[in-house]
């Protein structure tokens, strides 16, 4: 029996030296232990922080269903030709938002996930010595800009939200309080002014963050701070004006001559396109071309069956003034199109549809690789004019403001004379017409608390206005979205 014990002992001893046998081997996987050790690694991490820009388009999508459309549905100027469920209808009909509405969750996670990436980059790269300081600051500038962008998205949609600027290091105490709105804006301004000081170029044809994008976003932040809910007034309208003027005076951006140029791939990330979501046909395609097709489907593209997400309310479409080039066929809208594969057969659409995102290549390839504009020069020009009109008490004759306004207006009305003074309301209307269905209008309505009464062609107070497709008038409670239910369940502080 003694002899038998020996193998037993061997087995047991073998066991005690088996720690290495049981070591985890994450082959080919990146872990914090082996990261941020080279410029290429930093570049890749910063590139990753851009992916959140497309998340509202691409999260939880269905057939012509995407959360991003909610930003237009809620304005009341947008119809949805393809029937949808109650979640979309709460926006389309303005029946009040259910806290469990998936759109709320989409925008929340589409902001906080990339923010955490930015936090991680900022924390790790700030202390990194693997790249020269100037290179490092440029990387950081991109991360600061993106973090500002995501917080700007959050604070406008939800108001008070948690402000977290350092990376998560453990999962204890993960419940956070909601920060005051002003603190969030201060952080955004701080991030953008830090980014502004780095040495990024004025424009970046590849689609990375540029100085022009930073200044433009800062202008948008300032004009929002000037209006609701912070109401910082003229000081910030002036800041917005100054910042927009810097963009204009920088001379790097210009309006395209034709609206079709907005859709031309060779113009991406240049000219009028200050900052865009970058797409390609295969890896990160754009959803807009196919989802905005007519529904019930009409054979005007190789893949017409995922259609019917958005179309203009007829009343909004009709609000464009006679002669406005933007409603000319196949500029911003279309009412007929050639049959796919048969140019001689013209198919009439039952109502106007949006043509802004039509992609000629996608029509035949079935894949939409077009970029999506996030900040357009036209937006900055109109913002400049609006800020100055505010500073000047509702009407202005400032040369920069006039020039900015006229550039946009005269593109729409080529034969119109240049205006010599502009009212705030006219600038606001111009913004509705120019920036329609670019997911900007709702934020304008929020910060100005004004709506465009399309039936009477005038700017009116938002509260109390019933938009064409809504069941009822806007109320104050409609202006901010509730914090998503699942998040409140995970972090009860958010309910406070």
């Amino acid at each position, binding site marked *: 029996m003694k002899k038998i014990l020996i193998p037993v002992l*061997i087995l047991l001893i073998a066991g005690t030296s088996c720690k290495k046998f049981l070591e985890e081997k994450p082959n080919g996987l990146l872990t914090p232990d082996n990261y941020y050790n080279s410029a290429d690694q930093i570049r890749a991490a910063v590139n990753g922080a851009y992916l959140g820009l497309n998340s509202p388009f691409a999260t939880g999508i269905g057939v012509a269903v995407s959360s991003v459309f909610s930003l237009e549905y809620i304005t009341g100027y947008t119809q949805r030709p393809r029937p949808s469920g109650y979640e979309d209808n709460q926006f389309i009909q303005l029946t009040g938002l259910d806290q469990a509405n998936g759109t709320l969750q989409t925008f929340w*996670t589409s902001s906080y996930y990339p923010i955490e990436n930015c936090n991680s980059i900022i924390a790790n790269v700030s202390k990194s010595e693997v790249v020269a300081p100037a290179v490092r600051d440029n990387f950081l500038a991109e991360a600061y800009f993106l973090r500002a962008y995501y917080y700007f998205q959050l604070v406008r949609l939800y108001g008070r939200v948690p402000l977290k600027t350092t990376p998560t290091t453990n999962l204890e105490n993960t419940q956070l309080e909601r920060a005051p709105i002003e603190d969030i804006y201060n952080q955004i301004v701080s991030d953008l002014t830090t980014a502004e000081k780095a040495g990024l170029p004025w424009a970046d044809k590849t689609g990375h963050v540029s100085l022009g994008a930073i200044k433009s976003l800062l202008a948008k932040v300032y004009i929002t701070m000037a209006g609701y809910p912070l109401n910082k007034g003229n000081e910030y309208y002036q800041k917005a004006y100054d910042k927009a003027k810097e963009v204009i005076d920088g001379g790097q951006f210009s309006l395209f001559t034709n609206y079709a140029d907005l859709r031309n791939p060779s113009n991406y990330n240049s000219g009028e396109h200050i900052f865009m979501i970058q797409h390609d046909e295969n890896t990160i395609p754009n959803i807009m071309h196919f989802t905005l097709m007519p529904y019930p489907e009409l054979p005007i593209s190789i893949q017409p069956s995922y259609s019917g997400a958005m179309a203009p309310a007829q009343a909004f479409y009709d609000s464009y003034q006679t002669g406005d080039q933007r409603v000319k066929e196949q500029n911003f809208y279309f009412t007929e199109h050639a049959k796919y594969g048969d140019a001689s057969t013209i198919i009439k659409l039952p109502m106007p549809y949006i043509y802004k995102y039509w992609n000629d290549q996608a029509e035949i390839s079935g894949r939409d690789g077009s970029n999506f504009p996030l900040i357009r020069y036209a937006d900055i020009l109109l913002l400049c004019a609006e800020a100055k009109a505010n500073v000047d008490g509702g009407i202005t004759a400032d040369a920069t403001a006039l020039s900015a306004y006229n550039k946009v207006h005269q593109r729409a009305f080529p034969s119109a004379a240049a205006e010599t003074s502009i009212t705030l309301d006219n600038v606001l209307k111009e913004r509705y017409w120019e920036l329609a269905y670019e997911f900007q209008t709702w934020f304008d309505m929020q910060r100005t608390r004004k709506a465009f009464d399309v039936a009477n062609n005038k700017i009116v107070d938002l509260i109390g206005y019933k938009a064409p497709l809504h069941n009822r008038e806007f109320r104050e409670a409609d202006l901010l979205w509730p914090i998503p239910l699942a998040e409140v369940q995970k972090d009860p502080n958010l309910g406070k």
Partner: protein
Amino acid sequence: MKFKLYSRPYGLISRGKHYCGGLLICLAVSTNAIAGASVSAANETSVKNSYRAAVTVKGTVVDEQGLPLPGATVRIKDQTGGTVTDVNGRFTLDVPDLNATLLITFTGYDPKEVKASDTEIKVQLLPNSKSLSEVVVVGYGTSKKANLITSISSVKGDALAERPTTINITQGLAGKAAGVNVMTNSGKPGGNPAIKIRGTGSINSSNNPLYVIDGVVGADPNAIDPNIVASVDIYKDAGATAIYGSRGANGVVVITTKTGKKNTSDIAFSNTISFGSLQRKVPLLDAEGALEMFKREYEYVPGRLAPHLDPTNNFARKDELFNPDGTPKYHTDWQDEATQLAVSHQHSLTFSGGKDDFTILANFSYKNNEGIMLNSYAKQLNGYINIGWDVKPWLNIKASLNAGGYQSNNVDINTLGLNAVREMYEFLPFLPVKYADGTYSRKGDYPGAEDSENPVKLLNSVKDVTGRMTTLGNFVGTFHLSKNLNFVTSFSGQLGSNYENYFSGNDVFGVSQQQGGVAQRTNILSSVWSNEDYFSYDNTFGKHHLNAVIGASWYDYVTSMTRAGAENFFDNTFGYYNLGAGSVIQTPGSSQIENQLNSFYTRVNYDFDGKYLFGASFRADGSSKFRGGNLYGYFPAFNAGWRVSKEKFFEPLLPVINEFKLRGSFGLVGNQEVGNYPTISLYNSTQSIFNQQKTSAVTLASFGNPDLKWERAQQLDLGFDMSFFNGRIELGADYYNKVTKDLIYFVQQPATTGYSGAYKNLGSIRNRGLEITLNTQNIVTSDFKWSSGFNFSMNRSKVLDINHDIIYTWGGRIMEGGPLNEYFGYVRQGVWTQAQAAEAAKFDRKPGDIRYADLNNNGVKDAGDRTDLGNAMPKWEANFTNTITYKNLSLYLDLQGMYGNKLLNLTRFIMTGPTINVNSYQEVLGAYTPTNQNSQNGQLRLPNDSFSDNEVGDSHYIEDGSFLRVRNIALTYRFKKSMLEKIKLTNLSVGVNVENAFLFTKYKGYDPETTSFDASLNQGVDVYQYPKPRTISLNLTANF
């Protein structure tokens, strides 16, 4: 004495070398012990030789039918020495004198004693009336069933293969054991079965049992053919599973393959040919019905005409499809067109036998099973060889090798997409398969219908061929160190090569036309090596009986995946054979995953006089998936039994109740089947686009939890086994209460952390249930026999704690206090009628719109109106089999019943909405009309007519799935032995089977035993299920 056994060089070869080192040491040390053993063996021999052989006894041993029984042991009672019968059942044995008593034994038969005689003896052995003397494989050993004090269900290999279409073991287990729920979830070849032993215990970890094949722990059950299985033992309680530690929580399925018998030779040849056809049809609309539906949709707006009735609408195929009056020219039943008579055949050839010290079995089998959907099939080719050899008195070796290939074409891929099975349901019946010009019809040929290819074209043009080539090799050496002590060492390797090849042509609309054709190839290579070393000890001291096992094991798993794909092929000839021909290259993928386990285990069983039985087992498992203090987990179990029938006071009852045993067990078993690397934070390598080009990008992916450890399933089992009237009635029952704690649970985190959550040991799920097994021999006469088997199971799950989270499943939700598999949704109250117009208007609805209950009474329809709608798992299930034998003819009848299981019929949901633009169920013609307001279906209309909702998983689509199925009828004729002897056959039988013969259910889909998703949390969700066939088979088995 400490040495480094594993110096950790990377790579398999060097690691293998170290294993060898370990073995050699064990062998070297063992040999000393063996030397001692062989000395004592030599002594015994000399004792035996001291007999002066006085008489030579000759005789024959026959079975119950009077046929020779080869391999039976014949020995002199109370003495050593003996012999076994030869192939003709004959034996010759020298005995000291004619007073000697011979003891004749054979596994599965009652032993018999006869007086020695100088004349020829004929001994007839009868099969065990009491299955209690059967031997059951327990972890690292065997046990007599009588002494078993754990809950183990045993299934014989023959029963496993009794349904001819069975191609994998899981399928074969359906209905065979109480407490083992096997859902055959699809009608496609292979059946897509899901097994749950005593319910679902895990949310984020696997719910599959551990498979052990001939001692190879963690083997792939799909790697072997059911043909070569001798028996399957299913361990259900912790008393049985705890010795498998961190992998036993979902039960353990122990498969023992066939071996040859000593001193026999046998050739067995079996053949089956079977014919499968649609068991029943779903009541879909015919051509006139579908057109009536479209007509009504258009008539929602008075005066609006459907395209086939509108004289101004001259769509392309109108004249080909319709007569001038709008009646259809074609009447196509797509359930006929897309299905076929599935002709399948299976062949198996087995050579088996052995000599005094040697056994061998070699099997070769081939199965070619067609599915009832066109072009669907599964083929399997398998070769198996098993050798046992008593090399030396002190050494027995067993070596087995199984190698096989499997291939199937999956026509049901892309469940929610426009796949062939879906189109069989949805394609319009007034369209032809092909037009006169030879082109396939498309649904969009009728204006306004959802456009897609027809199912026949899809079945012919889209291929998803998956397959595998597997090799399982196992080498076991048993050293008889002494009479009571064995040392067993085994090495096994499993090599697998799995593949998936996909091709869809450049002309398949909606699938691959856009991409110009898509071809993909995925290959997964896996290798698993394991080594088990254990000692087993068995001894009897007077009335005390002790059995003990102690051992250790090492397990190493590596799998790597490679994927490539291409698009845009100018020609379809290339299929998936030439990816280089595509002009667009898909992003390739690859990965490698490894994990290791190192374990130590022991078990001790003690019984006093076979009356009071005790057992304890313990396993320590080290897993590379965990770290630090959690590297090792410890899993103990205890069990005890009392054979009441052995007590004195029970004696008066013995003539009625021969056996009565009470037993109970309690233990802790683990589950470590979480995804890989949950303890490490990972970044995700992906792509961003800049300048229209792909650029490398990295994002945060997961947050590792270094403190993660096993799930623990704590299980109490109480049961009894009874046998009445000399085994005519056998009854067994178990109650269990299994609580899974420390769930490897994906704890949701606030999004502000940047992560959706992380794995944490948190939460608890309970499964309680009752299992009853009753086997009876109702009639036993020489010519007529009738026996029955009945098993009954019920299981109730309850989520005790999941961090107050709510997890949404398909049409359901998981929350604390409720059961798993619970449906959750809106309650449909019918349709708003004209009398209710004012009330409807408050909800923004009109008469003809679907009416949902406003359960939270807030005047709007919102998420708060949803409620629990029933459970997908049955309240109980039962299986009832009958075997009736009259002379050489036997009839077998297998009934399966399930009660109280609900299904979410998503197929019907998608197909019967008010704005349907594909074919529909006949019920849709009962939808609301102003003259038929009392309906459950909303008024038919076109999609852009006024808003109407139709909610996924509302109460209208939760259907009762209770059913009774005549699962199998088999009629077999065995030719008389006397007839066969002339043609040198030992056995010949022919039979006919009808599988899935009849189904009685109210369910409106093809079959209520189904799911289209993961079965553990989404059982019963039916999305265009592949229909189950009724299969008629003819079979012939011959033994030489």
